[in-house]
């Protein structure tokens, strides 16, 4: 092996309240290569990266950049050493513009004390162009969709002259086209001698882009190998530590009558272009309907409108043939609609509450006596059922929700929706940032629920998930339904083509039709 190690971590330990995240991990970063780090949720990947970028201090252990030992690393000093990071959870200031975010803490100054906004915005424009993204540098980050924010994170890291770039789940919110652009940029960076640390749960991606692979499990190092020596099965089995056959499988379902019918949904956004123009579809009992589309296609907005979040939405929603009535979340939950939102930190969890209280939050009305008294046995019974059913890993239900790993937090959000006893389950990217093991569990649960007669609407960016579990899929593009495929007609190619409809120029569309 003639590749040189640029960054070396030795015996890193990290302890948090309630959990031990890392139990003495060694990690090598090879110069000018893509160093892939994989592991299930809670394996310690994100923690290790936070330590390398100076955000967290390790409880013990040492690390070296070349021959130099790094001590007391802070985010600022790590940046000065050329270590950049793109976080899994977005770390942007929503109240500042794209350009201001990108130049935070290294503002370009005119005279002392004055920020040169013009230069910053020009440089930002160049960066975003390189990422093939049409985002205004002056736009407030809060007005961007999650995927666009992810792009800003990437641009922010690129803006620094990095030697080592850590990417923690950079593609989890990106569409396929955006991932391709990212991979092109990664290749450019490699050629320029930048070492990449790449974390992702999308295993196909890792094989495609990685040079070295390091596997973590439960806070310990399992193995490190060059990528050419391994294949998908090997990665999966070393991550989960053994059996991996049952990732996802969709069983036979009995699809019944129409349960949810959505007619002509429309929704205006902050911009001139409406978020939803005309969305109609229906879901049957026991059916899993996939909604696929690029960023900004209106997928999340469709689910939110069904949930009753948008008071100004147009259109009609029928449940069991009955109109759902005015948009009112509580009423709709009680009528049997439940949503697992896209962003679990911002929309799914109450961080100050325990696991148990988070689980029962949406379904409290089902476990109260005389309408106001929370019955302890009912509550702990529901919580226990979800702990078993979802195999949530927590020492007790009373620990803080923040002490759980991402995948387990997601299971809690999922469990919270199930405890409302829904008829229709709306899932917005339920496997985002979730490891293979938890993903498999979530899909098994979805299968069981569909078999029990629930109607499931699944929004996901992962084609393989759609292919694996959905009975039918509709494609959204720029607020319109641009395609519908059943199990037999869905191919990855057809889905991708339909999702690009509103995005192509007319000539491209003509070409597409001719060929």
């Amino acid at each position, binding site marked *: 092996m003639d590749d040189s190690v640029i960054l070396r971590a030795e015996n890193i330990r990290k302890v948090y309240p309630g959990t031990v995240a890392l139990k003495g991990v060694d990690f090598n970063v090879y110069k000018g290569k893509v160093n892939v780090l994989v592991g299930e949720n809670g394996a310690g990947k994100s923690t290790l990266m936070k330590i390398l970028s100076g955000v967290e201090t390790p409880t013990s252990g040492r690390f070296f950049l070349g021959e130099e030992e790094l001590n007391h690393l802070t985010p600022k000093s790590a940046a000065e050493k050329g270590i950049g990071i793109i976080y899994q959870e977005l770390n942007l200031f929503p109240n500042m513009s794209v350009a201001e975010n990108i130049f935070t803490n290294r503002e370009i100054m005119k005279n002392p004390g004055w920020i040169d906004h013009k230069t910053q915005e020009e440089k930002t424009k160049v960066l975003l162009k390189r990422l093939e993204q049409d985002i205004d540098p002056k736009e407030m980050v809060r007005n961007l969709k999650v995927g666009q924010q992810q792009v800003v994170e990437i641009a922010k890291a690129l803006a620094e002259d990095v030697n080592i770039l850590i990417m923690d789940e950079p593609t989890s919110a990106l569409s396929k086209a955006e991932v391709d652009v990212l991979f092109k940029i990664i290749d450019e960076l490699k050629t320029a001698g930048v070492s990449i640390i790449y974390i992702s749960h999308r295993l196909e991606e890792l094989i495609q882009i990685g040079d070295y692979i390091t596997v973590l499990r439960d806070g310990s190092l399992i193995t490190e190998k060059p990528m050419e020596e391994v294949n998908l099965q090997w990665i999966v089995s070393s991550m989960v530590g053994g059996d991996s056959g049952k990732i996802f499988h969709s069983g036979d379902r009995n699809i019944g009558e129409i349960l949810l019918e959505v007619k002509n949904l429309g929704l205006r956004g902050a911009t001139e272009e409406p978020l939803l123009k005309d969305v109609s579809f229906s879901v049957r009992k026991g059916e899993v309907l996939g909604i696929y589309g690029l960023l900004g296609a209106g997928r999340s907005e469709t689910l939110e409108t069904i949930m009753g979040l948008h008071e100004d939405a147009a259109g009609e929603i029928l449940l069991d043939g009955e109109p759902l009535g005015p948009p009112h979340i509580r009423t709709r939950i009680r009528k049997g609609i439940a949503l697992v939102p896209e962003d679990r930190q911002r929309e799914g969890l109450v961080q100050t509450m325990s696991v148990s209280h988070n689980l029962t939050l949406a379904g409290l009305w089902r476990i109260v006596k005389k309408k106001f008294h*929370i019955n302890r046995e009912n509550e702990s019974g529901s919580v226990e059922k979800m702990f078993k059913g979802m195999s949530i890993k927590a020492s007790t239900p009373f620990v803080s929700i923040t002490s759980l790993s991402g995948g387990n937090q997601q299971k809690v959000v999922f469990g919270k929706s199930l405890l409302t006893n829904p008829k229709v389950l709306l899932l917005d990217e339920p496997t985002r940032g979730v490891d293979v093991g938890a993903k498999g569990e979530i899909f098994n649960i979805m299968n069981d629920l569909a078999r029990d007669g629930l109607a499931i609407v699944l929004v996901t960016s992962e084609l393989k998930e759609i292919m694996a579990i959905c009975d039918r899929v509709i494609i959204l593009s720029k607020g319109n339904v641009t395609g519908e495929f059943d199990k037999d007609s869905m191919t990855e190619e057809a889905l991708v083509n339909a999702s690009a409809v509103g995005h192509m120029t007319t000539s491209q569309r003509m070409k597409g039709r001719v060929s």
Partner: protein
Amino acid sequence: MSSLTKRDISVGMVLLQLRTVIALVLLTAVFTVLVQSSRGINFLHPLNLITISKHVAITGIMAIGMTFVIITGGIDLSVGSIVGLVGMIAGGLIHEGLVLNIFGITIYFHVWVIILICLVLGVLMGGVNGLLITRLNVAPFIGTLGMMYIARGFANIRSGGATFPNLQGKAELGNQGFPILGAGKIIGIPLSIWLMILLLLVTLYVSRKTPLGRHIYAIGGNKRAAELSGVQVKSITTIVYMFSGFCSALVGLIIASQLVAAHPATGESYEMNAIAAAVLGGTSLAGGIGTVGGTIIGAFVIGVLSDGLVMLGVSEFWQNVIKGLVILAAVILDQTQQSMNARSTEAKDKKSQKESAA
């Protein structure tokens, strides 16, 4: 060795978690010694403890309302002014009656009707706070600041700045009995203390055992997630401010009744005492965290501190300095507790590692 360290840490943790209780016990002990030696008075005499509790009830009742407001992530600066205004309304209704110029008559209400009117008024003012915050998106600090000025202004307008004295009422008008709220006792303990205990029990139940309580905590922890879980964020936030208004109105009535007079400046800066009691009791201004039990202990810390310092003859100016230091110490300890939690986990981890190695 490791088990010893672990025990040290867990003992330290328990001490930290009970810090407000410990502070209260320590303060009481210190004042008992100092007051006895310098003044020859028994600080722990039941009568003195009742006097202190009577003072605590004023802060405590307001602080219970404030605690829920802070748990939702808000703040209520109007409580002191509501105390003043409610006192003036009650005083005016007893002293002058309700003058209806159109009919040329004056109505004197029964005392219980007056009390009811005042409590409803407090709830309404809290309701206005809530509507400002939830429907018009005014920041809680600003909305209740506005209400603070408005209520104080009306308190002065009601009498032109004068005091309504002699609120005993008159037999021929049938409005006697107002002083009972301040002077009445059940088994030797003043009504105001009973009211505080009653409110404490009710709010303890609501906060721990009802969906309403759970929802209040959820709103403060993550408003958006609460909303998506079907929590009626706007209504519940409004209810919380209405309850704070209710508590303040109750305090306004108690004070006016105790003094048998209503003065428009009553309750000035009381909002700060209420906030201080809540924070001392472990309520987080970031929202989502806090208990009414803690708040009452916090109110007792402030009460024992003030009364003890008064009995020692410490000047009011120094009392303020000491109160400020105690609040700062409480917040700094709060930070310490968090890092202690982390260390305790590590100790547990090391121990389990050794066990698994053995």
